[in-house]
Structure formats: C-alpha cells, structure tokens
C-alpha cells in the first residue's frame, strides 16, 4: 500500500492531466448511457405511439464518438508524462544505491524485470484507476436513477452493482497478490534452467546429458504451467461470478419493468430504465480483470519503490571545489556494512601525491568499501578522510569524483559510440582531448584504424571490442577526466594472461604524478608500486615484496 502512495505522490505534478483523463472517461460513459437511454425511450415511445425528434439520440452518438477518442488520448498522454517522471525518479534512486554495489555486479535480468515493472505500472492508471473511479461514480447515479422508479429496486440493483464492482475485483486482487510471488519464482526457475542449458551446451553434449536437461526443463515448465492454470481458474471463477451478478441485476430490472413487483405505471420510463441499467452492468462486468491486474501491479509497485538505500550513505552533495593538493589521508577509519562486524577498525592510511600503493586481500567487500569511503559515497562510523587537507565530506561530490578516477572490471561500456563512451554526456570537450586520453591508454592507433573512428559503435557491453580494448577504453575515459588519483579495483580481472600483462604495462606507463591505489588479489603487476598493504582482521598491514 505504501508503495502505491509513493507512486501517487510522484504523480502529483501531473494531477491535473490525470484527473482530466478520468473526467473524460466519465463523460464518455455518460454519453453511452444517454445513447442507450434514448434508444430505449424512442423505441418504447414509438411502440405506444409517441413520436419525438431524434436530436438527443444523434447528439449522444456523436458525443460518445468524440469523447471516447479524447478519453483515450488524454489518459495515455497523462500516463506517459507520469511514467517519464517515474523513470527519472527511479534512475536517481538507483544511482545512489548502485555506487554502493560496485563490488557486486547487478544482474541484468533483475534490471530488465525492474524496467518491465515500471512499464506495467501503466496498467495502474488506465486499466485500474480510471475504470474503478468511473464505476464508483456510476453507483450513486444508478441509485438515483432507479429511485425514480422505485426505492426498493434502487437498493437491490445498487447492491448487486457494488458487489460486482467492488467485492469481486477485491477478491480477485487479493488472490492475484498472493499468487504473484509463486508465479515469479516458478518462472525464474524455468529461466535458470534455460540459462544452464544455454551456457552448458558443451557439457550437455559431452556428458550426453541432453535428454536429462530436457527432462528437468520440462519439469520446471510443468510447475509454472500448473501455477498459471490455478490463476486462470481463479480468474474465470471471478469473472463468472461478476457476470452472474450482472445478469441478476438485469433480470431483476426486467421483472420490475414488467410490473412483477414494485409497480411503476410509466412504460416508457420503465423501458428507458431497463436500457440504462443494462448498459451500466454490461460496461463494468469486466472489472474483476482489473482487480487481478491490481494484484500484480501492486507487486511491481513494491519492487520499484523498494528502499535501495541503506544506512550511512551520503546523497550527492555540493561543497567546495577540490583542492589542488591531492594527498589522500585517512585517520582512525572505522567502518563496516553490518553493525557488529566492522571491516576496518581504527585504520590509518596515506596516499601521497604520485605514490603507488597496492592493497591485497581476499575478494570481498572490504577492499571495495574503502573505495566507497574514499569517493565520499559512504560515511565512516568514525574517523576522517581528507584530500589535500580538506575533508572529503566538504568537497562537492562531482568535483571529488573528477579528482579521483575509478576503474574496475565492472566499468561498464555503453551501447554507444566510442566518443559517447568517453564523454558520458559531458559537453564542450574537444576531440583533441579525446585523442590524448586514447593515447595514454594506448588505444589511439586502434581507434584511428577503425572506419568510423571515434564514432564507431561499441556494441552492447562493449561486444564489438575485445576484452583488452574495452578495458583500455574504460581507462581512457577515466584519464579524460584528468584525475589526480586513480583507484584501480582488480583492473585486469576477466582478461586472459597475455592481455593482462599488456594492460599492466600500459598502467605502468601512466604519468608519474598520478597517485594510484591498486586493489588486487594477486602479487603481479606490482613493478611500479612503492609498498603493499594487506587488509586483514580489520587492519592494514604492510606486506614485504
């Protein structure tokens, strides 16, 4: 529920348009009622000999046509504006947390699902809120309209209607909400098995496991299909109940019109009443489906609004410019991700200007957390970190990250041109500077030889480049910022031995004025390093080498 409120709050700027969409929908429905009502009145009147003009009928027809068009147009327009805001909000929110996850790679599958979730929120407005609001507006109208004929009828019919548009969709929604996680899990299991098959095609051949893997896949499929069947049965039941309630409402109105109970003398009125009631029931008989959607949408909303930030995280902040001096000093540093388990305790660390230090330690959060601290993304429990004598928390976040460059195997290459990968949206940078950065990364010759040069497409995840070339591009990107300090987090991980050695050679050729913090798990590529530290038991210990 809270997640829905969060989303509603995000949509507040577009309140006017969203409301207009609902009003259009209500008016369009109103014209439908007028149309059918007039049809009933005219036919009934004609049957008993009362002739009248058809102006209202024609008007209703034209009105319905135009209003329906505008209803569709305005609801979609309002929705897309609201969704845009949601995406940007989500992007900003994710930006804060993703920097924390720099040690771990976020699953692409998870991200695609989140993007799909945002997309599915369009159902929230168009298929759920709008019809529901119009239905709820119709209920009192229905009551008043029937009351003219008979109060008793009004009560009965409105009661059935409310059951149909509130009771049944609510049940459907609750059911869909409960079933949601099961379906998602079953589908994930099917996907995992498919991925295992796809990545293990070689093993499948070699161990003659093709039949075995097929059997497992279809077991998972059957589990998913069973859950889906369950859901469809439930949905059918809900729809049948709603349809049954609708037919009962129509039946009762028909009996009333026939004078079976609660007599009312005016035949034309009775017939008009019947037409209008029948139209109202027919219009909203599909609302249980909206209820079902609501159950799923609620889950999507929760996933999208899930708190991704955690304690101790600093939101980007302004501050003073970065100082010219760039000695990095950390004193009495104490920090950890969990309250009882600090990763550093009272740690002292200095990176002098132009110095190169290697940090060893088993793979894990320890070494990468130092990065988040040094770059001002997290705040230590205790202690200070200063850059050129100025506390890191006082420096403008963006200025800090221009001063300290970061490169790791997670440095992402975007599905864009080489130029855009280097610039990352920065404006006013000359091509010459780009070439200089490429030279330092020893990638310039390669790019010059390409047919499109800087405008060559890099491919998804840098697929058009080899592992080594991609890493060099990421390096060039960092060097373009003219950072004074480089934090290299396992920079050669994921490359084959030869490419690693070449890349290390390039790193060793970098400007000697740049300070380097090399985070690694192996004792290779340490030629230019002045000393090595190991992170062990919350302390940094020097390692002889």
């Amino acid at each position, binding site marked *: 529920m809270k997640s829905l409120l969060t989303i509603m709050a995000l949509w507040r700027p577009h309140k006017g348009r969203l409301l207009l969409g609902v009003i259009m929908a209500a008016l369009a429905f109103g014209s439908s009622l007028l*149309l059918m009502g007039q049809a009933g009145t005219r036919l009934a009147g004609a049957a008993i000999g009362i002739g009248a003009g058809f102006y209202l009928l024609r008007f209703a*027809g034209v009105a319905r046509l135009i209003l329906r*068009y505008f209803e569709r147009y305005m609801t979609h327009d309002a929705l897309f504006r609201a969704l845009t805001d949601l995406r*940007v909000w989500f992007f900003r929110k994710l930006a804060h947390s993703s920097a924390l996850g720099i040690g771990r790679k976020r699953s692409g*599958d998870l991200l695609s699902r989140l993007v799909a979730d945002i997309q599915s929120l369009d159902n929230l407005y168009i298929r759920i809120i709008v019809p529901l609001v119009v239905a709820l507006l119709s209920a009192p109208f229905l009551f008043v309209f029937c009351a003219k004929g008979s109060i008793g009828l009004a009560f009965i019919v409105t009661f059935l209607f409310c059951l149909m548009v509130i009771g049944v969709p609510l049940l459907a929604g609750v059911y869909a909400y409960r079933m949601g996680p099961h379906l998602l899990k079953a589908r994930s299991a099917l996907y995992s098995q498919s991925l*295992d098959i796809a990545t293990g095609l070689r093993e499948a051949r070699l161990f003659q496991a093709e039949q075995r893997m097929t059997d497992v896949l*279809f077991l998972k499929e059957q589990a998913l299909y069973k859950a889906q069947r369950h859901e469809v049965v439930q949905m059918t039941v809900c729809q049948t109940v709603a349809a049954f309630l609708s037919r009962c409402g129509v039946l009762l109105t028909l009996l009333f019109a026939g004078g079976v109970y609660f007599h009312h003398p005016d035949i034309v009125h009775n017939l008009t009443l019947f037409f209008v009631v029948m139209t109202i029931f027919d219009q909203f008989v599909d609302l249980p489906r909206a209820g079902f959607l609501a159950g799923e949408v609620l889950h999507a909303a929760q996933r999208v609004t899930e708190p991704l930030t955690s304690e101790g995280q600093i939101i980007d902040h302004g501050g003073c410019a970065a100082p010219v001096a760039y000695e990095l000093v950390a004193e009495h540093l104490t920090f950890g991700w969990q309250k009882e388990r600090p990763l550093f305790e009272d740690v002292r660390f200095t990176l002098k200007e132009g110095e190169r230090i290697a940090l060893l330690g088993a793979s894990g959060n320890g070494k990468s957390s130092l990065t988040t601290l040094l770059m001002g993304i997290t705040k230590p429990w205790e202690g200070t970190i200063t850059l050129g004598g100025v506390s890191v928390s006082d420096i403008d976040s963006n200025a800090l990250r221009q001063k300290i460059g970061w490169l790791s195997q*997670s440095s992402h290459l975007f599905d864009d041109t080489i130029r855009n990968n280097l610039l990352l*949206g920065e404006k006013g940078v000359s091509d010459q500077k780009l070439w200089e950065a490429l030279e330092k990364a020893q990638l310039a010759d390669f790019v010059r030889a390409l047919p499109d040069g800087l405008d060559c497409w890099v491919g998804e995840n840098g697929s058009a480049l080899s592992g080594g070339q991609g890493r060099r591009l990421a390096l060039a990107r960092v060097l373009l910022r003219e950072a004074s300090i480089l934090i290299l987090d396992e920079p050669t991980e994921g490359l084959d031995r030869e490419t690693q050695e070449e890349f290390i050679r390039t790193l060793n050729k970098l400007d000697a004025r740049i300070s380097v913090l090399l985070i690694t798990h192996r004792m290779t590529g340490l030629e230019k390093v002045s000393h090595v530290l190991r992170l062990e038991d919350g302390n940094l210990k020097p390692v002889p080498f």
Partner: protein
Amino acid sequence: MVADKKKLKFWVKEQNSLHKKAVYGLVFQGFLNVILGCAQAWFLARALACILDSSMKGFLSFVFWFFAICLLRLGLNVVQDLMAFSAGQKARSRLRRQILAQIFSAGPSLLRTTHSARIAALLVDNVESLEGYFARWLPSSVLWAPAQWFVVVVLYWQNHRAGLILGISCLLLPVFQAVFGIATGRASRKQFLALSRLQRRFLDRLRGLATIVMAGRSEDEAQALAESADELRQRTMKVLRIAFLTSASTDLVMIIALVGIVITESRYLLHTGSVEQAASALFAVFVVPEAFAPFRAFSAAYQDRARATETAEVAVSLPAVETDPAQKMAVSEISAPVTITFDHVWYRWSAERGWVLNDVSFTLSPDEILLLTGPSGAGKSTLLELVLGFIKPGKGQIYFNGQDSMTIAPASLAQTISYLGQKPLLFYGTLKENILFARPDASEEELHSALKAAQLEVVVSQLPNGLETLIGEGGFGLSGGQIQRLAIARAYLKKSSVILMDEPTAHLDRETEQEIILALKPLLKGKTVIIATHSEEFDLFDKAKSLHLLHSNVSNDKEEISA
C-alpha cells in the same frame, strides 16, 4: 530481407497449422456463443415487447428463457476460457520442445553467434509471450468475420430494414480498418526503431549506473534520460493518435448501425405498431453489440500478433534440426587407448572470415600431451572443437585410431573425450549432483575416488553441508580454483581416454594454478591429451609436444622436450 520475410511467414504458418485442431474447437464454441447471443437477444426483445403491449402474455416464460440462455452462455464462456488457455499451454509447450531440439542440434557452436542469455530468453520469455497469440488471436481472427455476417444474415431474415443497415455498417468496417490500419502501421514502423532504441538506452544506462555515478555524471545522465523519455512519449503519442482513430472508426460504425436502426425502426413503429414489430425492432437493437463483439475481441488481441512475429524472427535464426545423412551412417565406436591424427586439416567459420586453421597435421599417441599455444583468436579453441566433433573440417581428415571421425557415432566420440574449459557449468543443485552430472550412475566409491583425485576432500569438509551443499546461481559461491577442481572430478568420474583442456587456469592466480596442475597430473597419465594454454606453468609437463598456432598461419613446431 525478402527471403527473411518468407521464412518468417513460413514459420508462423507452420505453428498455426500445428495448432489447427484446437483453433477450430475454439472457433466452433465461439460460434455457438454468437448463436446463443442471438437467441438471448430474441427472448429479451419479446419480453420487452410484452411490456409495451401491456398484455403481459407469455412475459414470464420469455424472461425465463432469456435468463436460462444467459446462464448457458456463462457456462459456455467458462468452458471456452479454460479450453483456450489449455490449448495455448499445449501449443507453447510444443513450441518449446521444438526450439530446444533445434538448440541441442546446433550445439555449442551456437554460442559463437548468439549470447546464452538470448537463448534462454527465447526459450522462456519469447515462447511465453505467445500466450495471447495461441489462446486469443488465432481463434478470434478466424471467428470474427463469419460470426459477424451470421448475425447480419439472421437479422436480415428477421427484419429486412435493420438487417440492411447492419450489413452496410459491417461492410464499412474493413474499409475503415484498412485505411487507418495502414496509417497506423506506417507511423509505428517509422517510430519503432526510435522507440526500441530509446528503450534499450534506458536499460543500458541502468546497467552502467555505477560507472556513471563514479564518474560524477549521474545528474547529467538523469537530465538526458528525462529528455529522451519525453521524446519517447511524443513518438509514442504520434503512433497512438492514429491507432485511436482506428478504434474511433469502429465506434463510428457501431453508432451508425445503432442510431440508424433506432431511427428507422421507431419511424416504422409509429405507423405500424404491433407486438411483433416492437419485438423485431428491439431484437435489432440488442443484436448490434453481438455483431461487433467478436470483432472487438479480435482488435483487443492485435498486440499478440506482433509477439508471434518477434518470436519467429529469433526462432528462424536457429538452424533446423540436423539430419545429416553422413552422420546417420556413423556407427563405429572407439576403444581406448586413442591415437588422434590430424591429416592436412583446414577449417573456416565462413567464407568471409577466411581459414582459421591452415593445413594442420599431427599425430598424438596415448600417454602423450600436445600443448597448443598461440595468441587469442589463432584457432586453439577451434581445433579443440574439431576434435570434439562439434564442427567438421573444411578440408582434410581427422582420424581416431585410424578411423575417420566422420564414420564415428557422435555419442561414442562424446563418451571418449573429457573437456575442461575456462568456465565449467555449475547448475543450481548440490555439489554431489553437479559432479555426478558426468555420470549419474557412478557408484559411491567411484565418486569418492574422484573427489580424492581432484583434491576436493578438503573443500567438501569446509562447506556448510558437505556434499549436499547447494551451489550454483543463488547457492554457495565457489572460488575459481574450487570450480576447476569440480571439473577435474567430473573428468575423473567419466574415465575417458582423451582429455582436452582450453585454458583451464586462465582466471586463476599463480598459487591456485600450480595446485590445479598438480591435481591434473595423475588424471592425464596414459591418456591422449591436448591442452590449449598461455601459461608457462604447463611447460613443466615432460614428454609434451607443442603446436604453435598463429593467425591464419600455422607453424608446426613439434618439439619433443626430453625428460
């Protein structure tokens, strides 16, 4: 491009014809529903006519029949929905089996052209997206026109005037659909590329968000995202505007029919008021929505048609299931020990890419090791895949114990060879299951001797649940070295005569690498071994031949390093 379109059409047609029986069943039920709809409208019309007549003769029985048919329709709808869903599931399951067979037939070489995630997405997401296509679009596409004209004919038979009006409106329908449909198609095609590029950009930026933040560019990216999302909105609205006109034209046709019928019938009724006339007029009015309901269902499902084409595009790129006649005749088996001979073997992936392997020849006897060296892309992995039999030489022959590889049954070849690559497959299961994957019917003793030989016993003792610990995605994380030991255990369990290794220690640090090589030494005794590697550590193997591959150039360096 045209050839592709033909292939797509053919694929879609094939799927449709496999699903034919179910579709006809659903169409029949749909038709029954329409017939009942007409009957329902008739009884309702008669009941209301009774009221207008004030005679109330037979009113209650008409009402009874009306309600009974309503309930019957409810029941029919339930059956229809469940049947449609069940048929849809069957169709999807069948398609999934077909695609899986194609994937297995194409084999590991498929991964060179298609990313594994794409394959998994095809198997799961693409097939599942066809739910609407099989369950709703196919039956409604067949049903709507006959159903609509059936209603027109029935109405005409009952009431000529009204029938004529309805008939004319129904004729207008396809005209409007064609006009606006083409316009919509054109607009969406123009926008489609831009739309999908914008979508992909959003996802791509999300994936690289850490990079963007660490470079201090997140605020600018947020702005750029807002701009591109707004562009997305404008483009989408452009397409939708026209699509809404299409819906409006359907509305228009229905309103023309309704208003036209009400006016003409009312005028007629004024002159000739009678119960039958009134009933006829009312029947005409009630039957109009019945005529358009099947079309409405069809329009609602139109998105599902696009899913079919999308899936077809990916499915068609998979090669058809191989029924190579040469392979069918391959029946001979290989027995240990194995001598491998390459006789002037050439290989290329495609005519444009050129020969990867040029005239490679060597003979490898049992208990001999061949070290394959050379830069990335020189063809080391390709050579290994030739030995594995996943691909066939372009020129030349490969012999196993003197038998041409083309005459050897693929199953026999697979049984004889063990392969250790850089990233062995770990699936979500226990450690035991993962090892036994090599040979599920292995005994406990064999499993334990494999664990011992691969030096996994220490690792097992450190795991929370020992052999029963769940590993793989979402399970306990094993280190690179531990995963390689698992692969070695599998190789031990399989007891094959030939062992191929493709850079097995590439991602390991020197210490772990040395340990792994130690674990490997006993495994390689007496076997025929080919190792592709960069590492100097493997030079420690005595009695190793070496073959150095260069880009499109092979230097046949057969040095015998003496012990």
